[in-house]
């Protein structure tokens, strides 16, 4: 079974929820389709979506909400 990685397209602060009061985009164990938004990255106070490029099953996040992230860092893994 192959592993699919979702990487941060830019550096910043990674958020798992669209707003502090909202539920997370995805929770560990969810299946993900290509194009699904899995998080937001705040870079210099502007927000950018992080989407899955490929589909996968049973997502596992490697970052907590509001963690710092570097460009290219793996934010979540999927079973391909």
């Amino acid at each position: 079974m192959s592993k699919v990685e979702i990487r941060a397209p830019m550096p910043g602060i990674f958020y798992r929820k669209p707003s502090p009061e909202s539920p997370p985009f995805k929770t560990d164990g969810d299946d993900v389709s290509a194009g699904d938004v899995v998080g937001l990255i705040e870079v210099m106070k502007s927000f950018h979506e992080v989407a899955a490029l490929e589909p996968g099953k049973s997502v596992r996040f490697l970052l907590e909400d509001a963690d710092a992230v570097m460009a290219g860092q793996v934010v979540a893994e999927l079973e391909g």
Partner: protein
Amino acid sequence: MAIGSLLIANRGEIAVRIIRAAQALGIRTVQAHSAADADSLAVKLADDAVLIGPPPAAKSYLDIGAIIAAAKEKDVDAIHPGYGFLAENAEFADAVVEAGMIFVGPDAEAIRLLGDKVAARDVARQAGVPTVPGSHGRVADLDEARALVEEIGFPVMIKAAAGGGGRGIRIAEDFAAFEKQFPQAASEARAAFGDGGLYIEKVIENARHIEVQILGDGDNVIHCYERECSLQRRRQKVWEEAPAFGLSPTVRAALTECAVALAKSVGYRGAGTVEYLYDADTQAFYFIEMNTRIQVEHPVTEMVTGIDLVAEMLRIAGGEKLSIAQDDVHVEGHAIECRINAEDPAQNFLPSPGQISGLSVPEGEGVRFDTMLYDGYFVPPFYDSLLGKMIVRGVDRADAIRRMEQALGALVIGGIKTTVPLHLAIAANPDVIAGAFHTKYLEGWLAGAPLSETENA
């Protein structure tokens, strides 16, 4: 008690500015910093530094407990909050005082009062400062709203009492639109905020943003004249000037006297700014809000008055009375500030963090660059995009614009994209040169993508 040691609870160019002012007064400086700012210029310049948390501001520069603990560990006398972050947080001001230290700013009560939009409007009105025509608090029903609108005229803003940050605002141009929108706004506000209460306020069209710098020591208050800050993008000031052009002596006197009266009415201590909307057609001005901190654009005032506002803040916080009398404050020449951001103006202001190389900063009489940059510095992605402020002074406004073009042309910031091309385009814009602009002007002009065109040419 004079301040002997100071913790700087901020970052970037303002931390550098505060450290320099404090050191010139013989104050020992301690820079509070996040893990992302360990290599910052402020940390290098300060006498000492202390880590307050991980990169996200919520866990460092906004963490009251972490900052107070760091201040206690370093045994400082006072904390300077800078601007943004906790600068206008009354809870933080209280926590500093409760921990036995001095908060460099007004007392928590003044921050709380002036930070509340409705309360601040009441304070202004009581001090005789004109406010934007509108309802005194909530309007009871459509009948009352209709009567009010007949009195103040269109266009009007219908605002949700429980809204904020631009949410729940509608603009009606005439009675037909108003009759339709008022009930809609009420039911929307009820659904969104659980409170259907509405305010009515007149829209001041083509208004300029003019603000007055004040300094108070608790008893006495003086003003340091005004700044013009109408060129804004997404409610962020981009280009600021001092003094404001095109004001009659009568209007200037009224603006500044109102600001002093407002600050006096609350026994204000420290540096503050009273912001107004100014209608150039009618020469009327209206109070917007008062900011209880040092402002980003304070250097333009310093350049034309010769007053060191940050040093004055530190002296006042240390218990001294104002060292300047109103009659000693004079404006000489004209100053302009450009906020240089790490954004690409040709790509819709896409943020551009990264490593700085080939930095070259112009120097000379009447040129000042407030910055935290140095060659090899990595601009982190976690905070706002301000890299520095180019400030120039000329004998008059036309001279200042010319000098700004020269200074920007000589400024080199390699390695990342910056908004220098935007500022060069602004400096060459005939409307800007003629002073024919208002707070919505810049966004309207940028909608025509003037920068992408020059990029492709």
